[in-house]
Structure formats: C-alpha cells, structure tokens
C-alpha cells in the first residue's frame, strides 16, 4: 500500500476550485504539483467555463491542513493559474454524475427499479441481464445508492468526479482580469 505523506488517515475532505487559463499543458502543471507531494486526489474534473479563455478545475482530496495550504500557495505560483478557492461545504452546491451498470434479471429488476425511483435516478439502458442507471447528486447520495446496488452486483461503474459552485449571485471568475487572455 502506497503511503501518502500529505493524506494521512483521518484527514478531512477538501474541495478546491482552480480557475486556469484554457490552454495546453495547464492540467499537467497543476496535476504535477499534486503528484510530487503525494496527494491522494479523490477526484479531479476539468471543463471550460462561462468564459472560453478560462477553464475550471475542481479537485477533491483528503488532506491535512498544512500540506493543503502549501499546495494552494504553490498552485498560485503557476502563471496559468488565475484563482484558487477552497470551497466551504456549507455554502457550496456539489454534484457528481455516476453511471452504474448493475445486474438485474427478470426476478429482481423491479427491486432495482424501486431503488432508482427512490433516489430519483434514471435508467438509461436496459437489457435482459443488466440495467444502466444514471444518477446525479452529492457524494453522500451517490455513496448511499452505491451501497444498496452493490447487493445486486455492479458490473461497471463510472463517476464523473465532483463539480461544485458556491451559492449566491457571485461568480469565481468575476475578478479575473479582462479579456486579455484571448489576445494571444
């Protein structure tokens, strides 16, 4: 078992939102900083934002406070990083999408469908042996759904990783300097 100096057992889960320039190589620079310090990243998502010159990286990791502060400072030193915010779970909406292919035959299909209804999930594919379920929600909800479905036999599973946005009217990118980036 690998040891992760920055991610000791019992470390809290943190969510970072990192606004970066939308250009090649940025993800490598960012992920390299995490890798070098042996951060055990739980999930990492990248996508364009409301401004096409800016991408947003959402990182969740179980990590102690001191290494977290250090990596935020190190990330800030990357020129392509425009802003970093550690999201406060109490003022944040966090969602994750999951696709689960679960064994379901004629005998137990209705049981599975009952769970799908209870969790407001959707069935996106069905055949004689399996159901493929799509569910969106917080990590807790998805973990709960997973716990119940495990019993039927999960054939395949893919999770998108968390994306998160703060509540209220403001955007993270609000203060990012003008449109300069696009002139390149």
């Amino acid at each position, binding site marked *: 078992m690998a040891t992760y100096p920055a991610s000791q057992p019992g470390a809290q889960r943190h969510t970072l939102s990192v606004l970066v320039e939308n250009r090649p190589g940025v993800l490598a620079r960012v992920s390299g900083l995490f890798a070098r310090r042996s951060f055990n990243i739980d999930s990492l998502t990248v996508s364009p934002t409301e401004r096409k010159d800016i991408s947003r990286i959402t990182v969740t990791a179980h990590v102690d406070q001191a290494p977290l*502060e250090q990596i935020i*400072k190190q990330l*800030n*030193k990357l*020129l392509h*990083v*425009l802003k970093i915010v550690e999201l406060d779970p109490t003022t944040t909406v966090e969602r994750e999408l999951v696709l689960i292919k679960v064994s379901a035959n004629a005998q137990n299909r209705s049981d599975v469908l009952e769970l799908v209804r209870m969790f407001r999930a959707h069935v996106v594919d069905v055949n004689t042996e399996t159901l493929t379920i799509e569910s969106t929600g917080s990590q807790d909800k998805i973990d709960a759904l997973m716990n119940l479905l495990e019993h039927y036999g999960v054939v395949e599973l893919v999770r998108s990783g968390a994306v998160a946005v703060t509540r209220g009217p403001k955007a993270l990118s609000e*203060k*990012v*300097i003008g449109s300069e980036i696009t002139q390149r």
Partner: protein
Amino acid sequence: MAKPTPLQAFNGVPKGTDKTNNAGSDTKSAGEKMTGAQALVRALEDLGVKDVFGIPGGAILPVYDAIKADTKFRFVLARHEQAAGHAAEGYAVATGRCGVCIVTSGPAATNLVTALADANMDSIPMVAITGQVGVNAIGTDAFQEADTVGITYPVTKHSYLVTDAKDVPRVVAEAYYIATTGRPGPVLIDLTKTAQTGEMEYTWPQKLLLPGYTPTTKAHGRMLENAAKLITQSFRPVLYVGGGAMRSHASAQVKALADLMNAPVVTTLNARGIIPDSDPKCLGMLGMHGTIAATGAVQRCDLLIAVGARFDDRVTGKLASFAPTARVIHIDIDPAEIGKNRAVDVPIVGDVATVLDDLIPVLRDEQVKSGTHDLAPWWKALNDLRANYPTTYDRPEDQPTDGTLSPQWVVSQLSAAADPDTIWVSGVGQHQMWASQLVDFEKPNSWISSGGSGTMGYGLPAALGAEVGSQRDFDGKKPVWLIDGDGSFQMTSEELAASTLDGVPIKIAILNNSVYGMVRQWQTLFYDKHYSATILHDGEPDADDTPGESGFVNIPDFVKLAEAYGCLGLRATTKEEALAAIKKANETNDRTVLIDFRVWQDAMVWPMVPAGASNDTVAYRKGVHPLDNSQQADDAKLSAEGF
C-alpha cells in the same frame, strides 16, 4: 528596487503603475519583416542582453544563423549544455542581471536540466532557449526530440512552447520579465523549428500578457508595525539572512537594520558577504557547517528575523528543535516560503530591499516610543562563543599527518593574497564549505556557489560566466578565483577550452585530496570508514614517486590537463610551492591558471551537525559539543530523516 513576486494569482485589477502592462500600445502597427529566429536575436538585443552562452545544434540552427558579426551581444561557446547553463547562472549572480543561454533540442535540453534545477533552487534569473523539432514532428519521436517543456515543469519558474513565429518577441519579453521579477528563477523557451523559420513582423516593445502573474513587492503596513513591536520587545534577536537578500541587492538595508537593532547577523551559504565579515555584527554562516556562534545565536535567540531565507534543512537541522525559543518574523518575496517549514509569527511578503526600507523608519519610531532592551548580555554570550570556538583550523587534530598541505591553510592563503575585488566561485563539497568559512567576504555578489541544489561541477562553468560578467561590467578588473575539488572539477573540466579560446581567464585552485572528500567525511563519521567508491586516484600523496594502491596515479594529471587546454598548470605539494603558485596565479591575467594543491584526504569540515540531528548537537570537533554537552549530543548520528 521593486521586484514583484508571484503572489496570489490576482488581487483584482492590474496595477496601473505596472510598466509592463502598458509597455506597447502600438503593437498593431506593421513591423519589420523577419524570421522567428531573427526575431529572437533582435528581441534579446532589445532587452539589452549583452552576453549569451550556448552550443548550437540541428533544431536551433536558424537562431545561430541569425547571430552575426554585428549582433549586439557577445556569444560564448560552451562545451557542454549543462556548463552553458551554469555559466549563465554565474554571469547572473556576478552582474545581477539575467543570464541567457541557447542550446538545441533533445539531449542538449536534457543536459540543461541540471542547470535549470540549480537556478530554480537558488532563485537565479535565467532565460534558457532550447530548439525543438518542427510542429508537425512533435510527438513522433523525431530525431533529437524530447518533451523539453514536460521534463522541465518541476525545475523552472515558467516555460513556453513556441509554435508560431509571431509569438517570439512577446514570449522573449515575458520570459525575461518573469525571470527577473518576483522571486527570480529560470524560464525556459522551447522554440520549435517552425517558429524559428516562420515569417513574422517584428515590433518592439511588446505588450506582456500575464494575467496570472502579479507579484507583491511592498509589505503590508500592519505587518511592519507588528514586526517593529516584536523587535523592540526582544532581548536576544538574530537576523538570519539568506540568498533572497542578495538577489534583492539589499546589502545596505540589511546592514542598516542590523545597526539600528544592534543585532547579530547570521547568513546562509548564498548570503555570504551580504555584510562584511569584518563587521563585528557578522557571526558568519549558520547550520550544518556554520560557526558555533551563528548556530548558537539562532538556537538561543528569542526573535528570529528571516530575511530572504527559506529554512533549508542544511540550515535548520531537525526542524522541531530549530530555534526552539524564538518568535519568527519571516520576510520573503515568495508567499509559498512563509510557513512552509516553520510557523511564523509575523509574515511579511515582499521584496527584501523594499520591505527593509519601509521597516526601518517604522522600527525607529517604535524604538522612540517603546524603548529597547539592553542587548549587552546577549552580545556577551555570543562573543564568548565566538572567542572560544573560532573558525580556524589550527588545532592538533586538524594538521595533516602525511606531509600533504592542509586544505584549510590553502584557502586562507588564497584569501589573504587575493585582490579585494575578487569574485569567488566554488564547486560542491568540502572545499566549498572551507571556502565559505575561510575566505574573507567583504562585498556582496562576490560569492558564487551552488547552494540548494549542491551541483558538483558547478564551479568551472559558473566561474567562466562570472568572468564574462566581470569583463562586461568591471572591465575584467574583478578577478575570478575558483576554489574547486578534484571530484567536482572533473565533472565539467572540458570548459577549460572555452576559457582559453574565448579569452575568459580565471584562476583555479583545486584542493586535490584524491577522494570525494565530503562523501568520505560522512563515511568516516557515519559509515565505519568504509570508503566505498570515493577514491579517485587523481592525486595520491605519493603520486610523484610511487604508484598508489591501485597502481594508478595522477589520473588525470591536472597540470598536464591544464596545459593541454592552453592554460598554465602548476602543482603545489609544499607550503613554499603553494605560496609561489598563488603569487604566480595572481600575477597571470592573460590566461587561465590552474593550481593542483595536494592536500590531506582526512581533513574534515568542522563544525558539523549530522544531517537530521538538532542544531544543538553541533560538534566543534569530534566530541566537543559547545551547545549541548550531554551524551545525547555526542551520540547524534545521521537520523533516519537526515539526507
């Protein structure tokens, strides 16, 4: 002078006074037609670059083709890309300006990685330009292709892959700006052949587009007041000054602060000379091989003011017991350094010179308001340490037992006989520590050594760069002395060719003990004298008479090696020969002089703190522990955490 830092990626709107952001509003006007390669050379000229180091090759040939007789910078041809990089570093430290080197792709770029890492560790401003295969060949495993930008992510401040000729001048201007501002560091430009050969329209100046780079130079006023309060309340303050003060050219400010506080100054390796060694406030270097007074001052202080220093493990020893009773004020331009290794009471982010200029009047007011404590008892304790444990090597156990020279004596003689304006350069190892301890440093920027990275082989190329800088800025009147070890020197000795052919004369003192001395010292102290792979056979004490144990002697013969490269080679085995050779070297300014001093292989660097042990266990000599005379200190060995 204002040197911004890469702080918090953005604090709102860019500052209107930032000259870089309004540099060129006329960039749209059509410029002169030229190729990207020509644009690179022109941009370097327009930046005021005067000296460039490098080696050509296939993927950078268009750039070399654009370097012509009327090009405004001097080009110095190195013999290895690593050396080109180190030469640019030595040049940068000696002149205070950005070093520039240009090499080709693939193996040249990977050779350069060592120098980039070294510059990154010691915060040396440098722009490195590498060739890259054409855009369409990238990723095809083309001849001499390497993912240079990918390889250098962790060892550069920033890097660029340029695929279009029109981007060349802007990227060069940005790279230079990034390298020299904030916390200085190496910036890499990987220039594809496509960008070099493409046509573009050259305009200057260029508008820089750096939305994620807004370094902070000026300290927060509240922090300065807090710092001033702590200072006036302190009974046992110490200024712990690092290389950042040197990079910020803050020598006068450090001296002014020390005088105002009447506080002792201890320095790291890179800050030797920030205040003169003759100043009674200067206690010398602290840490693993620091003076007892300097290390003792830090261990017993009640206020530690870190000035452009980063609490390196070679300074702190075991972190948990470093300066255990001290409150800490940390001044650094890089916010990531503050609190990285040591919790801080007053964090001050900003350029050292600017911060100290602002702090000194605030402190003066606070001193008038609150008064200060009498530091006489503190000085008494420190002066006792200084008097009882001087940095000399005249104890019986320091004397050679085999008729060879004492290396420490050689360094003292070199220092005594040298021009006061000398720029001192070293490799890495025992000789580096002795040079740092025993050379009399009276001026800043007169000591060039690889600190954080500890790169053996740094010495000769860095000395080459320093001499080029001396010729540029001081008409060659600052002589360059390289103190090197036989092991370190052999790693880059090919640069003697550049020294002779490019008219860059330096003075080289090889402290030849025929072993990897520092490794041997650790083997002596911590590995039961098992001298595994540390015997070099390049200067056995009996070399001139009988062959050494292995039958090999003088491999290589450094005197003959020097002669082979057109340098003057001298050998010194006795004190008389040594003094005569030093005299001869100081008189010879038209070519490089190399002196092969045959020194004692069991000579030790003292004092010493074993890696990973507490600074309190520091040994002045084997078994002598001035700060903690318990059995525990005597038993201190390499700890598991030490390296």
